[in-house]
């Protein structure tokens, strides 16, 4: 037989993946040879994330296709790689003090975050369904373990089990969808699928459509869209708080990036069929997220429902699928990262060993003991609620404008109405902080790393709200 020529390998475009993997393995191996003090691992992981972010700039003249069109480096992927590296770095920073307090002494924690980041980068850069599947699984498997990393805590266990079983279940749907797409178009590459649909090379239309529905389910689960969201509140509550924050940002952003890519690059031709589906999903996601959050008394569950609602807004960007909406998606996720890590940073600070103070009641009177913390929390919450001139408002405005441009007026009205409703429960927390007497003493250790994260997040939330232009320019360079 003929010798098979080696496929075109472009390791440079793969640089962030390689760098992050190497550092992940390095953390894993180093952990074997050090004692109880894990700070060196923190240092290695942060270095790795920094290097990973820098290495994503290795390619210029974007977009660059490599690996026979299975991998792409374009503005979307580079921007998202930055978001992932920032969010993973923030996650590690908030974890340091938390892990010390709660006695989580496993070095794998940090390497899992790095591996998870690898998966996210793959997800944002993959243009082949096999790669997308691999990315999703790398992310998910790392998260299953991270959610259950407190092995002796029944809540953490339960969260891991629920997440794992439902996640694997959803993976089944996702895979089946990909298979049907593959079977009816004959390729796993997004571009080829698109051209097959365009040129009428579809073997079976019903199978194709069923594949699309199955894809929506699989991806909908990963981003926690209703009705595939039900794991989110439970898992968010049970997982260690830094992991919850991490989960709410990075993996969600990565799945959304893949979601966007598949729907805008592989099957834009089918948009008449899936637009209505995504509209329905988006609307019920917003409603269920916001209504569910109103009655919550646990701050982590409240934030879980709120993040479900935010996914509802973000799906609108996928539906709009114009250039404005892709940059809106990127911008939104960046601001979301800051808002979420800021909020969770404060949630972590308020906790004590053995008592995490997760009831909203426990925030009563925070403004009198720690006015700056309360003010920061207020800024984050108001930004999440979309109040100008904070970053959350600009992000929402962008997404909604993108959708309006495509004429989705009713969808936007519903979204704006929802964001008005959402302020109600964010306000509830603020009311507790400013207008109630403390129910018990605050016993806050102002751990420097967590404070650092909060400071960065404050800066990001305000900076991106008042001077968003430079970042927006970056986001829409394509």
């Amino acid at each position, binding site marked *: *037989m003929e*010798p*098979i020529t*080696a496929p075109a390998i472009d390791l440079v475009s793969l640089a962030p993946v390689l760098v992050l993997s190497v550092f992940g*393995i390095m953390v*894993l*191996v180093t952990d*074997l040879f050090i004692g109880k003090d894990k700070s060196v691992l923190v240092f290695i992981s942060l270095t790795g994330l920094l290097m990973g972010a820098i290495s994503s700039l290795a390619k210029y003249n974007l977009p660059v296709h490599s690996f026979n069109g299975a991998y792409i480096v374009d503005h979307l992927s580079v921007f998202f790689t930055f978001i992932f590296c920032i969010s993973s770095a923030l996650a590690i920073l908030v974890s340091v003090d938390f892990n010390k307090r709660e006695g989580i002494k496993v070095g794998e924690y940090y390497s899992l975050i790095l591996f998870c980041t690898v998966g996210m980068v793959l997800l944002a850069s993959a243009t082949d369904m096999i790669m997308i599947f691999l990315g999703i699984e790398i992310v998910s498997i790392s998260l299953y373990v991270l959610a259950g990393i407190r092995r002796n805590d029944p809540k953490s266990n339960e969260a891991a089990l629920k997440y794992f079983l439902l996640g694997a279940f959803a993976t089944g749907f996702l895979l089946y969808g990909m298979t049907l797409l593959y079977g009816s178009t004959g390729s796993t590459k997004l571009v080829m699928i698109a051209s097959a649909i365009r040129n009428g090379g579809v073997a*079976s239309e*019903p199978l194709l459509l069923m594949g699309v529905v199955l894809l929506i389910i699989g991806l909908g689960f990963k981003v926690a869209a209703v009705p595939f969201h039900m794991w989110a509140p439970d898992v968010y509550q049970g997982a260690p708080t830094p992991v919850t924050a991490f989960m709410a940002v990075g993996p969600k952003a990565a799945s959304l990036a893949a979601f966007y890519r598949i729907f805008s690059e592989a099957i834009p031709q089918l948009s008449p069929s899936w637009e209505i589906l995504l509209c329905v999903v988006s609307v019920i996601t917003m409603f269920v997220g916001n209504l569910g959050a109103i009655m919550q008394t646990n701050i982590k569950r409240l934030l879980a429902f709120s993040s479900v609602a935010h996914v509802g807004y973000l799906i609108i960007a996928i539906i709009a699928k114009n250039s404005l909406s892709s940059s809106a998606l990127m911008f939104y996720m960046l601001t979301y990262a800051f808002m979420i890590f800021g909020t969770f940073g404060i949630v972590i600070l308020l906790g004590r060993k053995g008592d995490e103070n997760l009831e909203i009641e426990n925030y009563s009177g925070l403004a009198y003991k720690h006015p700056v913390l309360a003010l920061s929390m207020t800024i984050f919450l108001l930004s999440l609620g979309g109040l100008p001139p904070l970053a959350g408002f600009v992000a929402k405005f962008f997404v909604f404008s993108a959708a309006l441009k495509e004429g989705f007026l009713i969808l936007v009205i519903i979204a704006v109405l929802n964001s008005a409703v959402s302020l109600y429960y964010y306000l509830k927390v603020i009311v507790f902080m400013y207008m109630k007497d403390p129910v018990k003493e605050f016993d806050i250790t102002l751990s420097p790393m967590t404070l650092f994260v909060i400071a960065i997040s404050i800066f990001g939330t305000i900076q991106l709200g008042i001077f968003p232009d430079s970042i927006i320019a970056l986001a829409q360079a394509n």
Partner: protein
Amino acid sequence: MLESYLGAGIMMLMAIGIAGGMVVMTSMLGPKREFADKMEPFECGESPIVSPHQRFSVKFYLVAVLFVLFDIEAVFFFPWAILFKQLGMFGFIEMLLFILILGVGLLYVWKRGGLDWE
């Protein structure tokens, strides 16, 4: 247009029918006469001496899991083995890298004590 869905629809219905049917049928067709003696574990006419639910040591699971993991990775050797000649040096180096990464995994398991039985 709708005809083309007919096939897929029938297929779905039959799939659901068979799967659901199996669940329903077992509960319907299976006899359900229960009496005390029947619910006893049967051990050649003798009353059971110990509980039949013996717990396996967690070690077994650990070994099983490790086995599954490393075993399944071997699946990637097969295509390489078949096309060994054609792939040439490129394939060889790739496979070395693959084994290296697996080796790191093995090292990790070893140092963690996953291979110690006692």
